[in-house]
């Protein structure tokens, strides 16, 4: 129900966007994410983009996970 998946915006037309994930295209409402731009990833929930994925934070989390896992090897 609260499922949301990251999809990439390929074009924007008003408060609608054409998005793509795994080769599948889907039209979504960006009424909640007016800041979304072409190339951004948004979290798609039941036909609406509910948030823009923060790519820098995504990288930071992956780095943090790697660091934490390497600490577990040391101790």
């Amino acid at each position, binding site marked *: 129900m609260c499922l949301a998946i990251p999809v990439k915006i390929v074009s924007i037309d008003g408060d609608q966007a054409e998005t793509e994930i795994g080769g599948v295209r889907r039209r979504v409402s960006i009424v909640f994410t007016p800041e979304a731009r072409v190339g951004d990833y948004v979290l798609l929930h*039941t036909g609406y983009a509910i*948030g823009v994925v923060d790519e820098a934070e995504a990288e930071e989390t992956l780095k943090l996970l790697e660091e934490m896992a390497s600490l577990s090897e040391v101790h």
Partner: protein
Amino acid sequence: MKFIDEYQDSKLARRLARKIAQRSTKTIRLMEFCGGHTHAILRYGIRQLVPRTIELRSGPGCPVCVTASADLDKAIALAKLPGVIITTFGDMIRVPGSYSSLQRVRAEGADVRVVYSTIDAVEIAKANPGNSVIFIGIGFETTAPTVAASILKARHDRARNFYVLSLNKLTPPVMKALLDSGETKLDGIVCPGHVSVIIGSHPYEFIPRDYGVACVISGFEPLDILLCIDRLVEQIERGEPKVEIAYPRGVKPEGNKKARELMDDVFEIGEANWRGIGIVPGSGLKIRGKYEQFDADKVFSVSLKPSREPGGCRCGDVIRGAAIPLECQLFNKVCTPESPVGPCMVSSEGACAAYYQYGSPEGVPGL
């Protein structure tokens, strides 16, 4: 797929689990609020991966499951009205009410349609101007803005035959109700990631402050959940509970203001009836008076017999985190996904369905 696959690395997951085991000395109980987390935890074997010191309990985070029988009965009664088309999300139609289900009344001739999005429900109204199209609004803060948007779209598109039965619910007030009851002692909460995309992290701050319970907002991939558990364990070991975001690629402290503005325009806060919990003040979303022409509760009246719960079903206990599905006498005996007795076995997000599909008694602490 980007932002999904890289958070599913099984080798990294095992190393993280070892780190959690090194850190964890206290025996603790965590509750994952969200049904999406329950499914991910069971699907990826996270219960078995984390040390025995950590117990994971499912909470009231499956919208279909927490819908009270009386509210289901109302939806079913609305479906029987002449000229009505009911639209709702998939799992709702199979959930048994007190006397019937939407699926059963559909087989008996009612027009009940499953939609992917609230936008589709408005489109059905526009395509069927001679009918009354009622959307059964379920879901938490993730979904409530989309229900609000459907009412605004119906107004914009002059779809005057579109209505919403709002059964939408709010997360922090029910967390408070569970903590106040003290029935299930909790040390930490795996806070729902996509609810938090909308509400941000601030609404949880009363939980560590007033109850001393750690709160970490989690994403839905296995590494996200392990990171969340690691943060919770660290907070609890240190005795310093607070609200943390372990899903910063999706969640900002302030949440999504635009979505909340639309939600606040359409809805006001009222009470809600939760299966297994009862009436929780301030946990429901009611349609504001200025949009009452879209409010199925105001426009239609149906008479209802007193609601009743299925005999022997412990969905209510499972929803409160007072029992796990394996403790229910009906589980996997008379209650299976093919022939479900209660909503927790019906919904793809229900704890019973998750335990049935992925669970095993091994690795479940306390059994």
